[in-house]
C-alpha cells in the first residue's frame, strides 16, 4: 500500500451497486440472515393486497349474478375466508417489518461501531482537524440516512414492488387484453420516471447547497456578533441573510413543485388506465370475452398498480442518497489504516529502561517531499533529550515516528532493538507515552480524565499520582477534588491546568519512554511554576524526548538533537553546541535577540 492511498479518505465513489452490496454484507453479516422466512412472509403479505379485487370479482360474478338471484351464503363464506386472509396477511406484514427492521438496524449498528473503531485506527493525518467533521458524519448522519430511508419508505417500497408484480399476474389471469391496456397506459409514466427522478435529485441537490449557504449566513450574526456590532454592518449582514433565506425558499418551493407534479402524473396515469380499461372492457363484455366482475376487479387492481408508482420517484430519490451514505461509511472502513497493530503476533516487551534507535529513517507525507531524510540516532536509557529546530525542520515528525503514530517511509525505528512495527500495541502503548501540546480532556470528572489510560487505578492511587508530581495543593484547591467536572474539552480549567491534567495522566500511565511536545500556549505565571515542577518529577527516572520550544528546556537536557531541513545536523549537550557556530548557535542567537527586544 502506498502512503498516498493512506492519506485519502476512501469515499467509495467508484464502487458499483453490486460491489457495495457485497462489501456491505461483509461488514454487516446480519443483513444477510433469515431471508428465506422473511421472503415467504413478505409474499404472504403482498398476497393480502389482492384479496379485495378478487372478492369484488367473485361477489359480482358469482354472488350477485347467481342463477337464483343474489347468493347470500356464497358471499358470506367468501367474505369470511377473505377476512381471515386479510387478518393473516396483516400478521405476516407485522412479522416481515419486524424481521427486516431487526436485521437492518443490527447490521447498521455493527457497521457504525466498525466504522467508529476504524476511524481511531486511521493515520493521525487522516484524523486531522479539517476532516474530523466528515468523519463524525460517517458514523452519525450517513448511517442515520440509511436507517431513516428504510423506516420511511424502503420497506414499504420493497413490498410495493411485490404488490405490483402480483397485481400484474392477477390482471393477466383475468384478461390479457385489459392487462395490456393497463400496462400501455402506464408506459409514459415509467418512461418519464427516470427523467422525473433525475430532476428531483437535481432539485434537492440545489436545495441542500442552499441550506448550507443559508446556515453559513445565519451563523454570521451569532458567531461573529462582535465584528458585526463593532463595524456597524448590521444592514449588510441582514441583507446577506435575507438573500440566502429567499434563495433557499425559492429552491425548496421549486423542488416541492416537481414532487407535486410527479404525484399528479401518477394519478393521471391511473385515470387514463381506468378510462382505457372500462372502454376496452365494455367492448370485450359486449363480445362476452369478459365478465362484469372481472372488469370491476380491474378498477381495484389498477389502484394497486398506481400507488407504488406514485411514491416511486420520491423513494428512488431517497434511496439514492441512502445508498450514497452507505457507500461513504463502507468507504471509511475500506480506508487503509497504515499503522497496524501486529496484535497477538506482536512482540511483548519487558518493562524497564529503554533504548531508542533510528536507523536510516526517511519519512514523507503522502505526495509530499521528504520531511525526514536518513535520520540515524540512538537514545540511551534514562537520557533526557531535547529536540530543537526551526519551523518545518522535522522535529515533530521525529516524535510521531518515535511513538508510532506514523511509520517511516523507509528505515526503522527500534525500541530495545525490536522494530516498533513488530511490537504489539498493548506493549508499545504501555512503554511509550506521548503528551501532546494540548492534552485533550473529555467532558467528565478530573478522576476519569487522569485515569483515561488505565481505568483500573483506584482513587487512592490517583491521589498518590498527584502527590508524586507535587500537585496535592492544586488538587485540594479544586472545589470537588478528583470529582471536579472539567467541562467540554476541559474548558472549565485554564490552559495551564489542562497541561497539569495531561501530565498526571501520563504519570498514571507510567511509561518507560516519555515523549513531550512542549506546550506553547500562554499560561499564567503561577501555573507555569507548577507545570515545570511537575514535568521535572515526571521525567525523573525515565527516558524522555522533548520537542523543545524553550531555550531553558534545551539547556536542561542531557543532550540536544538539532534538526534542520529533515536531518539531524548537530547533537550534543547545550554547552558544547552553543559555541559551535552551527545551526544551534543561530537558533540560540535569535532567541536571545527576541528576548531582549525591549
Amino acid at each position: 500500500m502506498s502512503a498516498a492511498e493512506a492519506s485519502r479518505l476512501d469515499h467509495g465513489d467508484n464502487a458499483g451497486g453490486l460491489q457495495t452490496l457485497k462489501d456491505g454484507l461483509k461488514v454487516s453479516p446480519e443483513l444477510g440472515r433469515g431471508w428465506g422466512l422473511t421472503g415467504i412472509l413478505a409474499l404472504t403479505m403482498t398476497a393480502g393486497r389482492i384479496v379485495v379485487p378478487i372478492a369484488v370479482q367473485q361477489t359480482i360474478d358469482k354472488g350477485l349474478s347467481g342463477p337464483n338471484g343474489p347468493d347470500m351464503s356464497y358471499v358470506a363464506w367468501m367474505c369470511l375466508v377473505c377476512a381471515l386472509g386479510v387478518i393473516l396477511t396483516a400478521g405476516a406484514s407485522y412479522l416481515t417489518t419486524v424481521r427486516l427492521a431487526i436485521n437492518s438496524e443490527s447490521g447498521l449498528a455493527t457497521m457504525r461501531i466498525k466504522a467508529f473503531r476504524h476511524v481511531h485506527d486511521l493515520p493521525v493525518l487522516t484524523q486531522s482537524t479539517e476532516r474530523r467533521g466528515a468523519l463524525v458524519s460517517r458514523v452519525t448522519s450517513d448511517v442515520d440516512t440509511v436507517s431513516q430511508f428504510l423506516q420511511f419508505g424502503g420497506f414499504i417500497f420493497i413490498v410495493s414492488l411485490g404488490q405490483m408484480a402480483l397485481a400484474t399476474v392477477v390482471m393477466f389471469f383475468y384478461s390479457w387484453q385489459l392487462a395490456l391496456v393497463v400496462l400501455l397506459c402506464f408506459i409514459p409514466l415509467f418512461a418519464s420516471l427516470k427523467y422525473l427522478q433525475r430532476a428531483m435529485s437535481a432539485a434537492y441537490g440545489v436545495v441542500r447547497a442552499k441550506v448550507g449557504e443559508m446556515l453559513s449566513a445565519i451563523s454570521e450574526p451569532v458567531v461573529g456578533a462582535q465584528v458585526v456590532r463593532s463595524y456597524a454592518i448590521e444592514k449588510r449582514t441582514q441583507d446577506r441573510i435575507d438573500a440566502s433565506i429567499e434563495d433557499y425558499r425559492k429552491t425548496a418551493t421549486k423542488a416541492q413543485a416537481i414532487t407535486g407534479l410527479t404525484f399528479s402524473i401518477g394519478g393521471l396515469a391511473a385515470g387514463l388506465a381506468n378510462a382505457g380499461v372500462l372502454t376496452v372492457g365494455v367492448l370485450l363484455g359486449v363480445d362476452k370475452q369478459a365478465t362484469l366482475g372481472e372488469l370491476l376487479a380491474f378498477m381495484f387492481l389498477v389502484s394497486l398498480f398506481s400507488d407504488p408508482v406514485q411514491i416511486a420517484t420520491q423513494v428512488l430519490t431517497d434511496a439514492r442518497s441512502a445508498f450514497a451514505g452507505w457507500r461513504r461509511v463502507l468507504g471509511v472502513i475500506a480506508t487503509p489504516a497504515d499503522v497496524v497493530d501486529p496484535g497477538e503476533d506482536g512482540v511483548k516487551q519487558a518493562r524497564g529502561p529503554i533504548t531508542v534507535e533510528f536507523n536510516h529513517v526517511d519519512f514523507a507525507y503522502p505526495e509530499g517531499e521528504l520531511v525526514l531524510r536518513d535520520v540515524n540516532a540512538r537514545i540511551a536509557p534514562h537520557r533526557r533529550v531535547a529536540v530543537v529546530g526551526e519551523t518545518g525542520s522535522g522535529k515533530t515528525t521525529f516524535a510521531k515516528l518515535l511513538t508510532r503514530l506514523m511509520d517511516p517511509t523507509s528505515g526503522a525505528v527500534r525500541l530495545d532493538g525490536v522494530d516498533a512495527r513488530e511490537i504489539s500495541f498493548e506493549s508499545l502503548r504501555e512503554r511509550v507515552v506521548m503528551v501532546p501540546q494540548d492534552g485533550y480532556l473529555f467532558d467528565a470528572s478530573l478522576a476519569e480524565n487522569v485515569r483515561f489510560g488505565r481505568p483500573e487505578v483506584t482513587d487512592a492511587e490517583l491521589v498518590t499520582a498527584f502527590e508524586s508530581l507535587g500537585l496535592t495543593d492544586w488538587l485540594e484547591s479544586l472545589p470537588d477534588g478528583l470529582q471536579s467536572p472539567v467541562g467540554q474539552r476541559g474548558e472549565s480549567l485554564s490552559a495551564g491546568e489542562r497541561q497539569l491534567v495531561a501530565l498526571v495522566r501520563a504519570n498514571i500511565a507510567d511509561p518507560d519512554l516519555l515523549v513531550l511536545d512542549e506546550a506553547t500556549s500562554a499560561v499564567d505565571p503561577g501555573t507555569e511554576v507548577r507545570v515545570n515542577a511537575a514535568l521535572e518529577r515526571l521525567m525523573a527516572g525515565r527516558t524522555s524526548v522533548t520537542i523543545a520550544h524553550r531555550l531553558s528546556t534545551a539547556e536542561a537536557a542531557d543532550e540536544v538533537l538539532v534538526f534542520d531541513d529533515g536531518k539531524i545536523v548537530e547533537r550534543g549537550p547545550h554547552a558544547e553546541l552553543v559555541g559551535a557556530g552551527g545551526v544551534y548557535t543561530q537558533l540560540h542567537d535569535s532567541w536571545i535577540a527576541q528576548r531582549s527586544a525591549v
Partner: protein
Amino acid sequence: MPVPKVPDKGSVTRRGFGVLRVAIWEEPGIFALSVLASMLYGGMTVAGGWALGWSTDHVIRPAFESGETTTGAIVTLISLFLGIAILNAIGVVGRRLGAGVMQFRLQATYRNRVTRQYLKLPLEWHHQHSTGMLLSNANADVESTWFVIAPLPMAIGVIAMLVFATIAMFAADVWLALVGCLVFPLVFIANVIFQRYLQPLATRAQQLRADVSEVAHESFDGALVVKTLGREAAETERFRGPTNALRDANIAVNKARGMFDPVIDGLPRLGVLAVLLVGVGRVRSGGADAGDVVQVAFLFTLIGFPIRALGWVLGELPRSVVGWDRVQRVLTATGGMEYGEARLTSTKAARLQVAGVRFGYLPERDVLAGMDFTIEPGRTVAVVGPTGAGKSTLTTLLTRLVDPEQGAVKVDGVDLRDLARDELAGSVALVAQTAFLFDDTIRGNITLGGDYSDDDVWEALRIAQGDGFVKALPEGLDTKVGERGTTLSGGQRQRIALARALVRRPRLLILDDATSAVDPQVEARILAGLRSAVHDDAGAATTVLVIAYRKATISLADEVLFMDDGRILAHGTHTELQSSTPAYRDLVDAYENDAERRLEEAELDLDAEGATA
C-alpha cells in the same frame, strides 16, 4: 386583525391548533388556495367512486347484459374518468404546491424575524445563549414549527372528502353508508392512537441520535490522546452503548409502524368485505343496485390512504409546539441599545476617557470595578494584566458592545451613549482575539461592503503583512475564504482582520491580542508597520490601545496600563512600571518565556501544510 395568541397552557393539541391559527393568519391567501385545491382533490376522489357506481349501472351492466353499446356511451365513460382524473391532478398539484409555498414562506418569515432579533439584541444576550442553540433556533426550530403545514391542506381536504363520501354513501344506500360510518372513524382513531404511541418513541430515537453524535464528536476530537494512550478499544466500547440503544429505539419505532400499518391498511379492506356482504343482502332485497355496492366499496379503497393525513397533522403538532416555544423565546426577548444624536466631527486621533466605569456580567461579581484613565490623542498604550483581569471586557466597553453599569466611556469628550447609531464605527475599530471571517472574498472581508479602493485594501494588507500571501493566491483579493475562513491559517485570518480595521483609518484602534497566531518575526514587522502608519506627516493620526501579551508588543507602546481584578494598578511608561510595580515585573518576565515558546509555535502547522502540499 391582531395576531392570534397561542395559549401558554393547555394540552399540546390545543396549543398546536393555536400555532396553526397563527400560520393561517400569516398566510391567509395561499392557505385558502391550497385548501380549495385540496377540496377539489377530495371531491374528485369521491367522484371517482361515484363515477364507477354510476357507469356500472348505466353503461357497463346494460352493455354486458344486452350485448351491445353505443359510441355515445363509450365517449361518456372516457370523458367522465379522464375529466375526474385531470381535475383530481389539478387538485393534487395545487394542494401540494400551496402547502409547499405556505410552509417555506412561513419558514422564511420566521427566519427573517429571528435573525433580525439576533442583530438587534445586545451582546449580553448573546453571551447568555450558546452558539449551537441560537443556530438551531433560526434553523431547525423554525423548520420543525412549520413541518405541520405540509400535510395541513391535505388533512382539511380529507375532512371535506369524508363529508362528500358520507353524503354519497347515504345517497347510494343507508345500510352501506352505516358500514362506512363504522369503518372511517375506526381508521381515524387507529391513526390517532398510532401517532400518540409513535411520538415518544420517535423522540427517544432522536435523542439517542444526538447522544451517538456527541460521543463520536468528543472521541474524534480527542483522537490523538486516544491513540497515544492506546484506548481505541475502550472508546469503541463507550460508543457501543448509545449505538445499541439507538438500534433498539429504531427497532421499537419500526415495530410500532409494523403493528399499526397493517391495521390502518387492513381496516378499509375489511370494510370493503363488509360492504360486499351487506350489499349482496341489499341487492337481494331490492334496496340497492350493484352499482351502489361497487361505488361504496371503491370509495373505501380510495379513502384508506388519504385519511392518514389527519394522523400526520395530529402527530406533527407536539413537535410544532416545541419549535414554536423555542422560537418565541428569541422573538419575545427584549433589549437593545439606545442611541443619541451626537456626531464625531474630528479627523485627528481620538482622545479616550474612561471615567468611573463599573461593569459585571453577573450582578454579584464586578469584572471592571471603578476604572479611570485618559489616553491623549495619538498615544499608543499597552494594556497589560494577567488572565481574567478584565482586559477583553474593557475592549467591549470601549467599542460600545456593552454599556457600563456606572461611569462613562468618552471619545473626544462625547459619552458613547450620546452618539448616533453607527457613528462610533466610523472612528473606532476593534480587532478581537479570534478573527471572524465572513463567507465572502478577501476583498469583501476587508471592506465589509464599504467604499474602499483596491489601493486602500492593498495598503492595509501591506501594513498587516498580508499582502504577500494574498498576492500568491490564484484569485488574489477575489479569493473566497470559505465559511469562517477555513481555507486560511489562523495567522492569515488575523492579518485579514487587522487589514479590515486598518483600511478604515480609524482614529482609535483597539487590538485585543490580534496577532497571537502570527509568527513573532511577522508580528514584529506588523508592529513596526503600524507604528509608522499611525504617524502621518502632521503627527499621530491614530490613538492605539493594544492588549499586550509579549514584551515586543509592550515595547511599541508610549505608555502602559497595568490592570488586575478590574482595576488599573499602575499607569506609566514600561521603565517606570518595572521599577515601581513588582507584580508588573513578574508578569512581564513570564511573557518573556512565553515569547520564546511562540517562536516555535507554527511548527505543527507547517508540518501539516507540508503534508497536504
